[in-house]
């Protein structure tokens, strides 16, 4: 899976979890950019990604992420 394939999937998941249409992907995007992105929906977002890509994040991996671009890189690294 290419990085842009992963990014497209992540956007689909974000649109579903945060109830937003047509999210324009940007590596620098954070929770501050999306109204419905709070501590609880953040958990559902992380777990939806785990299920989609069949991977598991550690708590420290989750805590260290600063933006969506880093999430996409982390998924790519876990997919080897």
């Amino acid at each position, binding site marked *: 899976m290419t990085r842009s394939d992963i990014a497209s999937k992540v956007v689909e998941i974000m649109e579903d979890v945060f109830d937003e249409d047509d999210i324009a992907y940007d590596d620098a995007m*954070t929770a501050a950019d999306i109204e419905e992105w*709070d501590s609880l*929906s*953040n958990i*559902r977002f992380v777990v939806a990604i785990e299920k989609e890509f069949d991977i598991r994040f550690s708590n420290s991996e989750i805590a260290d992420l*600063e*933006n969506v671009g880093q999430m996409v890189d982390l998924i790519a690294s876990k997919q080897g």
Partner: protein
Amino acid sequence: MNLPGQTRERENQLMSTLEEMLAGRPHLAKLTHLVTEAWPEHADYLEKSFDVRTPALLDTSDSVAEVVLRLAGDHAGQTAQDYRWLCDVIREEELNFARTDAYRYSTFAETNAHVYSDDEFMQRYMHGLLLSHVLWYMHASSLHFFLGRLAARVKPGGKMMEVGSGHGLLIYLALTRLGLEEAVAWDISPVSLDQTRAALDQLGMGERARYAIQDMHQIEAGSEQFDLIILSHLLEHLEAPVDALQKIRHAVAKGGYLFVNVPLNAPMPDHIQLLSDPDDAVKMLEDGGFRVLEIASHTTQAASLPRALKRKIAVTCSIIAEPR
């Protein structure tokens, strides 16, 4: 993903919004100040939680905040820290729940070993939950329902009983706001019962309350009856809640009511009964021998109920019932 920290500018902006929002509601403002001192990043959540409340609900929240502050007393700062700790505990449970679609434990033996027998954990847990009655929309709204809807039904001068009264908040409110005359607190834990006694003494209600070590599964025929029985956030902790309801129905006096708060999709370390729809709660009450008269569903941060159920966001169901 970690949520970005608030900038100082955003923090100041939120503080002044909260100040405006809570003008004329001094107890709510004081409690909010205490919590945001201990946990500045929580201001965003609190702003949303208060923004969705009606003026009447904000008034109720203010009056409950006054009681909560009295109960927290000299330990208010520590209580705010414990509230922050509780929210961290719940976040862990939410992560586990999202991954597994199940609560972590399913038996009393497990929750007893991991939660109830840990005194320090329990103390912080109870402190945190005390503040949640004001700070979480879901809990504040269920208290508002409790006061508003029961006031329309309960006859003044009656006698109430609560199983698992904890900090005694509902007993205090029933005695002072619903016109009930006398209260009885039941618990299987002497330590918890002592906490309720200390709380009600502190609130000046000691003379109107009695306390008993009593397992609700062991009620005998012909035992004392009550005009109002409260099971608030209790049934989700039991292995056999329907059996417990079948026993307790005999303790409801003729013309009396049962009031229940029970959560859906609310992962907490000591919850073992997972309900996922208000219909599950109604069925539990009906199987336990009750007729549901009123039910209200209070969602996290006032999300719409269909959305909350679809997303498995926590909901508290408040139910008024009578024996069938």
